[in-house]
Every structure is written in C-alpha cells, then in structure tokens.
C-alpha cells in the first residue's frame, strides 16, 4: 500500500503525463475487493457528494439499495458543465480506474447491473481516457456489470442530475421537476444512483482503506480531501487536492494565485462571491456557511484588486442565462433580464441607476421559482456580488464606473451560442 494516512495526494496519486494503466493503478492502491459493509463504511466516513450539493453519499446509496427493481443504474456524472471546474477532467487524466473502482463498488452495494459513465461529447480526451480504462478492464476479465460510456451534449444544465437522467431516459438534457424530496430518478423503470466523478474516486479509496483513514484528513464536519479548481488571477488554472479545512489563503498560495484578492467566487458560477478577507477562512462547508458560501463544486475564482466585480458578474450571468433550459418562465425570461440589467450597470451609463434597482427586484422575484436550482444559483451569484461589490455597484449606478470595467478578464465563459445552435439532445 503506498497511500499513507494524513498524506496528500489521495485521489490524485500517481499524477503524470498519462493516465495510470490498470496495472499501475493496482500497484499504487492494491486490488479492489468488494466489501459487504461498504455503505456502512461510507456512512462512517462522512463522505458527501463532490458535485456541489454535498449530500451524504451513503444515504443516497442506501435509498437506492432499498429500491426493489430488477434493473438499477449507477451513473458517473463526469459532465463537468461548470466552466471554472476542471477536476473531473483531471481525475480522468490521472486515474480513471479509481473512478471505475468506486462506480463498480457502488453498483455492487446497491444491486445495480449497469454503470453509465456520462462525459460531455465535446470532451473527447476525457472520453478516450475512460474508454481505454473500461477496455483494459474488459480485456482482463468479466466485470459482472455492463459498463457503458455515454456522451450527452455538453450543456451547463446537462450536468444537473435530473437533466442527465432525462437525457439517458429520453434523449433531452432538460431538468425535471421534483416536488417531493427525496425523490428517486429513473431510466424507464430502473432507479438510478447519480454521483460525481470525484465522489466515485473517493469511494474507490474508502473501499480499500476504510472510514477512519478517510477521516484522518479534514475537519469533523467535513472530513477527507477534495479537489479544488483555482482560476482567475492565477498564472494557469490549476486543480489541487487539498484537505478540507485548509485556510483558503494556503490554497491560493499553493495554486500560485493572488493571495490578497479583491474577492473570491466560491462554489461555481452559480455560487457565492465573498470578500477577499475570506482568505483566512478554512475551506469547509460549516465554516463557509456564515459567509453565505459553500464548497460547491470545488471552484475558486480569484478576482484581484485590479478587476471589476460587476463586469465579471455580468459576463457570468449572461452566459448562465443563455444556458437556461427555458422550460420555466421565471428562468427563461428572468435570467436574460437580469443579465441585461447587469450589463447596463457594468457600463455605468444612463440606465445604470434603474438597473441596480431592477436587479434587486428581479432577483427576489426569480428566486426559487424554477423547476431546478439554476435560476437560484444565478440569483445567489448576483445578490452576493451586489453585497461584496456594494461600493462599486453604487459608483456604477451613479454613472462613475471603475477603471477596470468593460472587459471581463478573470471569469472566463465559453462562447455564447446563438439560440438555434444550442443542442439539448
């Protein structure tokens, strides 16, 4: 066993120019043996989902285990629709076999006969890595379950678990309305367990080393390690594996990012802005909650002093509005309206004053009225931006935009697609 307790890296062990082969993987970690008490062990470990919602993995899996169905699916959500996140890509490039270990173990634990690895169809490198890994395993011997790789269109919303399952079920990446929680997603009549790539990787390690090992890093409420994607004011966007509870400033330093930033965007593009003083806060959900933020998908976007928070927010909001599935009125109409008002505010022209009031009104109206949490995320982004950049907002509204307004340099978004180019199926 080459993984020592209290040490990093864990899931990123063996990172090199090429993904680990099956043989190398087993040299590092030893073979994976199914254990009957996997769900109990996961429960004791306190592992929570690494896709953003941080739901206890063991609870979710137990719900599926208790379903009576002939056919069950385990889905590996490797969509990574979040533009500022690169951790799933990194995992696939370092060790796809660890992810497979976790998926196969969970399949065994809940009684699933099928594993579906879902990668955005544009991410051909990731697809190749997974295909090679699955092929290696199949060549070695029967897996016992059917493992398939599926490639939905790479929309932001396609990574949302109900949208992903909807695509698997009916070929459309549209989120589903789930009024009752907890609710089980299904493909046809087969219930589905959806977990993020990184979650599966951690399961692959807990399977071998147990809950106590997992808890030897991190805090009591947020145990273990997690992958963080740092972008923005950093030489190169980088993915690090860190122990939960590490002060944010240390993470920024390790990433080579600006350690006295103006502000940070935590969680993802549907996350929360926090002031630069948050660098002293440990990176763990229970300690970020007082700031109104959360770990989310492990995204940290660093905005330096020489940046315009309003412009960055506008850039993100405009792209997020375009990524709406347009199923629900408040999101389909409200988000573009919010983005438009943010644009007026960013420019700081005649409309800026009304724009600020409109943003406040509209974000309150839009919140919570969609079928999924997409509009809520944008509202959270915008409201936190108005709070953290309150002075800037007032100045912009008064027609005096800051010196850095006009060009978004730190929050990068993919090219805005025209409506007829959007692919949902």
């Amino acid at each position, binding site marked *: 066993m080459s993984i020592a307790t209290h040490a990093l890296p864990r899931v990123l062990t063996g990172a090199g120019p090429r993904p680990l082969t099956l043989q190398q993987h087993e040299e590092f970690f030893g073979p994976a043996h199914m254990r009957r008490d996997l769900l109990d062990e996961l429960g004791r470990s306190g592992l929570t989902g690494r896709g953003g919602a941080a739901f206890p993995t063991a609870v979710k899996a137990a719900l599926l285990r208790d379903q009576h169905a002939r056919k069950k699916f385990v889905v590996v959500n490797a969509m990574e629709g979040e533009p500022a996140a690169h951790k799933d890509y990194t995992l696939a490039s370092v060790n796809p076999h660890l992810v497979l270990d976790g998926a196969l173990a969970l399949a065994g634990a809940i009684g699933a006969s099928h594993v579906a690895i879902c990668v955005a169809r544009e991410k051909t490198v990731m697809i190749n890595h997974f295909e090679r890994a699955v092929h290696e395993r199949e060549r070695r011997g029967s897996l016992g379950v059917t493992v398939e790789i599926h490639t939905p269109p790479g929309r932001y919303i396609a990574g949302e678990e109900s949208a992903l399952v909807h695509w698997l079920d009916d070929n459309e990446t549209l989120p589903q309305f789930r*009024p009752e929680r907890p609710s089980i997603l299904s493909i046809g009549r087969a219930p589905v367990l959806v977990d993020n790539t990184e979650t599966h990787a951690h399961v692959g390690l807990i399977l071998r080393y147990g809950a106590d090992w997992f808890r030897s890093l991190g805090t009591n409420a947020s145990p273990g390690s997690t992958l963080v994607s740092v972008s923005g004011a950093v030489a190169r966007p980088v993915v690090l594996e860190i122990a939960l509870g590490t002060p944010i400033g240390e993470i920024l330093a390790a990433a080579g990012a600006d350690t006295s930033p103006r502000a940070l965007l935590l969680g993802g593009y549907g996350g929360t802005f926090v002031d630069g003083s948050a660098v002293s806060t440990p990176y763990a959900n229970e300690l970020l909650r007082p700031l109104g933020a959360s770990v989310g998908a492990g995204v940290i976007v660093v905005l330096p002093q020489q940046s315009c928070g309003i412009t960055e927010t506008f850039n993100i909001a405009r792209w997020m509005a375009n990524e709406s599935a347009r199923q629900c009125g*408040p999101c389909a*109409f*409200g988000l573009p309206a919010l983005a438009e008002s943010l644009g007026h505010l960013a420019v700081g022209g005649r409309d800026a004053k009304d724009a600020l009031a409109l943003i406040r009104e509209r974000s309150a109206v839009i919140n919570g009225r969609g079928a999924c949490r997409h509009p809520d995320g944008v509202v959270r982004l915008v409201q936190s931006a108005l709070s953290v950049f309150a002075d800037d907002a007032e100045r912009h509204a008064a027609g005096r935009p800051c010196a850095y307004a006009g060009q978004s340099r730190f929050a990068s978004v993919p090219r805005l697609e025209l409506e007829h180019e959007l692919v949902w199926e």
Partner: protein
Amino acid sequence: MKRRNETLILRVDPILCDGFGHCAELAPEIVTLDEWGYPIISTAPLGAARSTSLRSAQLAVRGCPRQALWIEKVEQRN
C-alpha cells in the same frame, strides 16, 4: 378528500406552466403574476374547507389550461 384541519398550499409545476394567467384571475388573493406573466404563489396556507381562498385555489386548479397547479398538504414541522 381534504379534511378541515390540514395545512394546504397551492403549488405549481413550473415546467408545465406556460403563463396563461388564469390562476391569477381565479385566485387573486393567492396568486400574482410577475412581469413575464408567470405566477407567484403565496406560501401562506389556504383556509379551512369552505373558506374562500381554498375555493379560489380549487377553481384555479381546475381552470389552468396546462393543469400545472395542484393543492398539497404541507407536512407540519414543529
């Protein structure tokens, strides 16, 4: 069957809803429309059986062209 002392609220399926606005006309004390014509539904519980707000809500449920509304019992959390 809705009994007298249950807490009931009106709920909408935002995907089915297409902004016809009949609910706001039939139950104006419960539903208002946002600037794009979509319903904002009050979370205050509907009155007891035979109260006007429950009756309005029932009319709204029946009148919705997309059948996007329903009345739900709320779990009491103490």
